C-alpha cells in the first residue's frame, strides 16, 4: 500500500544506505505540519489572535519548560504504543482504526485486575495489569482480524463499529460494576472507577509532574517491535503478506493467519497503552481515558514512516504538538476546536506530502538501476 514510503523499506536499509529516505521521511512530515500551521495562523488572525504569540506559546508549552517536556513525554507514551501497533498492522497492509476501542478495553481490563487483586504486591500487580491490558486489547483486535481473514469483512468498518461498542462497554463498567463506591456514598454517581491501590501506580520520574515509568515500557516495546518485524521469521511473514499476499500464499505463508495476527498485536499494543494510562497517569478508570490517542496514534506512526524506531521521535514531536496546543489555547484563549481543525489539516497534509517522498524514491531507482554491476563487484566494494 502506498503509505510508509517515508520510512526505509527494509530493515537492513536502516543500517546504511537509505539515509536519504530516512531524512526525507523525517523532514517531509515536518514541512506538512508547517503548512498546516500556516493555515492555522490565518484562522488565528481571523479570530484576531496573534499567531506569533500563539505559536510561541505552542512551542514554549511543548518543549520550553520541564513541565512542558515532561507533559509531552506523558502524551508520547500512549502515542508511541498505539503507533507501534499501527506500524505492525500497516506493514501487513491492514488498516487499524480500532485503537480507540482497544485502548478502552485495555484500560478496563487493567483497572478490573488491579482492583480485583488490590492486596497483591506491586511486582505482581504492575506486570499483571499490563498483561491484562495487552490481552484485552489483543482480543479487541483479534475479532476484526479474524473477520477479515476468514470472511473478508473490511477491517476499517468493523474496527470503527467496535470503537463504539467498547465505549458503551466502558460506560457500563464505570457506572456499574467498577463505579467508585466513595462517589456513590457521597451521593454523586461519577462515571469513574475507584482509585487503584498505590502499589500498582507506576513510579513518577520527575516530582510535580505526571511523567511516569510507562515511557520505558513504550521505548522497550518499540525496540521489541523493530526486532520482531525485521529480525524474526514471523515479522518477515507479516511484511511479506503486506507487500504481496499472492506471492506469500505461493510461498506457503498462511496469509489470513498473519493478517489476523497483525491486527491482534496492534490491538494488544493499544491495550497496553490503555493499561499504562490507567496505572501511570489517571490511577483510575474514567470517561475520556483514550483522549483520542487511538486516532492521533495513527498520525504518529505516519510521522515515523511506519517504522517502530522512527515512531519514537515522532511520538515525542506529536505529543509536544498536543501539549503545546493546549498551552496555546490558554495563552490566546481561542476555542479548543481550532486546534482540532489544525490537527486534522496536519493529518491531511502529512499523508498528502508522501506523494513527493514516492517521487523521490522513484528517482532513486534511477541511480541504482542505471549502474548495475554484478554482485561480485558489489562485494568487493563492501
Amino acid at each position, binding site marked *: 500500500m502506498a503509505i510508509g514510503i517515508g520510512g526505509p523499506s527494509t530493515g537492513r536499509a536502516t543500517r546504511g544506505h537509505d539515509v536519504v529516505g530516512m531524512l526525507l521521511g523525517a523532514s517531509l512530515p515536518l514541512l506538512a505540519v508547517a503548512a498546516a500551521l500556516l493555515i492555522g495562523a490565518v484562522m488565528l488572525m481571523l479570530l484576531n489572535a496573534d499567531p506569533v504569540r500563539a505559536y510561541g506559546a505552542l512551542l514554549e*508549552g511543548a518543549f520550553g519548560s520541564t*513541565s512542558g517536556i515532561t*507533559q509531552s513525554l*506523558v*502524551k508520547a507514551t500512549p502515542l508511541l504504543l498505539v503507533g507501534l501497533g499501527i506500524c505492525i498492522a500497516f506493514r501487513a497492509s491492514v488498516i487499524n482504526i480500532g485503537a480507540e476501542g482497544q485502548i478502552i478495553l485495555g484500560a478496563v481490563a487493567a483497572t478490573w485486575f488491579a482492583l480485583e487483586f488490590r492486596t497483591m504486591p506491586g511486582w505482581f500487580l504492575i506486570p499483571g495489569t499490563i498483561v491484562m491490558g495487552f490481552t484485552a486489547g489483543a482480543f479487541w483486535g483479534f475479532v476484526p482480524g479474524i473477520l477479515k481473514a476468514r470472511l473478508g469483512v473490511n477491517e476499517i468498518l468493523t474496527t470503527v463499529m467496535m470503537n463504539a461498542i467498547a465505549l*458503551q462497554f466502558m*460506560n457500563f463498567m464505570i*457506572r456499574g460494576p467498577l463505579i467508585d463506591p466513595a*462517589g456513590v456514598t*457521597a*451521593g*454523586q*454517581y*461519577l*462515571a*469513574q472507577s475507584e*482509585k487503584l491501590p498505590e502499589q500498582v501506580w507506576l513510579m513518577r520520574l520527575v516530582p*510535580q509532574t*505526571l511523567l511516569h515509568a510507562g515511557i520505558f515500557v513504550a521505548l522497550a516495546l518499540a525496540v521489541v517491535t523493530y526486532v520482531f518485524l525485521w529480525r524474526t521469521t514471523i515479522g518477515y511473514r507479516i511484511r511479506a503478506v503486506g507487500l504481496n499476499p499472492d506471492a506469500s500464499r505461493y510461498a506457503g505463508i498462511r496469509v489470513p493467519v498473519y493478517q489476523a495476527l497483525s491486527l491482534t498485536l496492534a490491538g494488544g499494543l493499544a491495550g497496553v497503552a490503555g493499561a499504562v494510562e490507567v496505572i501511570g*497517569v*489517571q*490511577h*483510575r478508570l*474514567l*470517561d*475520556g481515558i483514550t*483522549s483520542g490517542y487511538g486516532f492521533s496514534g495513527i498520525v504518529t506512526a505516519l510521522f515515523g514512516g511506519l517504522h517502530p524506531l522512527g515512531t519514537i521521535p515522532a511520538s515525542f514531536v506529536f505529543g509536544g504538538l498536543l*501539549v503545546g496546543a*493546549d*498551552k496555546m*489555547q*490558554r495563552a490566546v*484563549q481561542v*476555542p*479548543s*476546536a481550532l486546534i482540532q481543525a489544525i490537527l486534522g489539516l496536519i493529518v491531511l497534509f502529512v499523508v498528502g506530502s508522501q506523494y513527493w517522498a514516492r517521487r523521490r524514491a522513484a528517482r532513486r531507482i534511477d541511480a541504482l538501476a542505471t549502474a548495475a554491476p554484478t554482485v561480485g563487484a558489489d562485494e568487493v566494494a563492501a
Partner: protein
Amino acid sequence: SNSATQAPATSQPASPSEAASTAPSTAPAESPSQAAKKFRVALIMPSATTDLAFSQSMYQALVAEQQKAGGEGNFEIKFTENMFNVPDAQAAIRDYASQGFDLVIAHGSQYGAGVEEIAKDFPAVSFAWGTDVNTFGLPNVYAYTAAAQEGGYVNGVMAALVTKSKKIGVTGPVEVGDAKTYIDGFTQGVAATDSSIKVSKTWTGSFSDVAAMTEAAKAHITAGADVLTGSSQSVVGSIGAAKDAGNVVWFGTQSDQVSLAPTLVVASQVYDWTVVLDDMIAKIQSGTLGGDTYTLQLKNGGLKIAYNSGYNLSADAKAAGDKAIADITSGAVTVSP
C-alpha cells in the same frame, strides 16, 4: 497571593495567608501592582462554555461576578473548555496556578486528584473544585457541589400536577453525576405527589448525541407522555421534539432553558454559582484561601426554580411547587440523592 496581603481590608488581622504569602511561593513574579488591582480567575471545564448546562452555568456566574467587580479591568477571567482529558486539565490547572491567578476553579469532579496534588505545590494560590465536598484538608482548596435532587423534587411535584396523561418521560445521557441525582429527585417528587403516575427514563449513552435525544423524546411522546424533563447539553434535542409535538411541556435543569421553547418550558432549576463565588472571593481577598465547602441549595439560593412567565402554570401546581421549595428549605422534606 499578593492580592491577599494588600487587600483593601487593611484592618484585617494577620491571616494564615500572610504565612502563605511569605512562604516561598512557586508563583512567578507577575507584577504585584497589577495583581493588586485585578482579581484573576481561571476556569477549567469539561465541556463548552455554551453547553446550556453544567459548564455554562459556572462561566456565566463568573461573568456576572466580573460585572459586579466592574469589568475586565478589575476582574480577569481565563478559561479552558472541553477538558475531558484529565491529565490535560491537570496541566492547565498547574499552568494557571504558576501564572499566579488568585483563584483557579477546576469545574469537574474528575479533576479532584489533580487539585489535591497541585494545591500542595502552590500554597499561595486558592483552588476551587466541584462538584464534590472534599477539600483534602488543605487550607487553599474550596469544594462546591449542587443538591440537584432538590430542584428535581420540586420539578417532579409540579410535573405530577401538570400531566394529564399521567405519563412522564425522562431523557438523560449516561446515568451518572447530577444527571442522575436530578432525575432521582424528580422521580421522588412525582411519586410523593401522585404514585399512579408512570415515569419512564431513556438513557442515550452520549452527552452529545442530539439526534438520539430527539428520538428518545419522540418515543416518550408517542408512548403518551405529555411532560418531559432531562439533563445534559443534548436535551435541546428533547426540547425540540416537545416543540414539534406542541402539546408537550418541559422541565429544565442546570440553566434556564426558556430560550429554547418560550411557551413550553414550565420551569427550570437554575444553578446560581454566584452565591458560592461571592463568599469565596470575599474570603480570598481577606486572605482565607480555602478550607470551606459549599453546596448549592434552595435554602441558600444557589438553586433557584425559574418559572417561565410565558407558560401559564395552574395556580395549584405553582402553589405545590412553592410549598415543596418551602418544605425543602425548612427541612420538612429531605430529598435523598
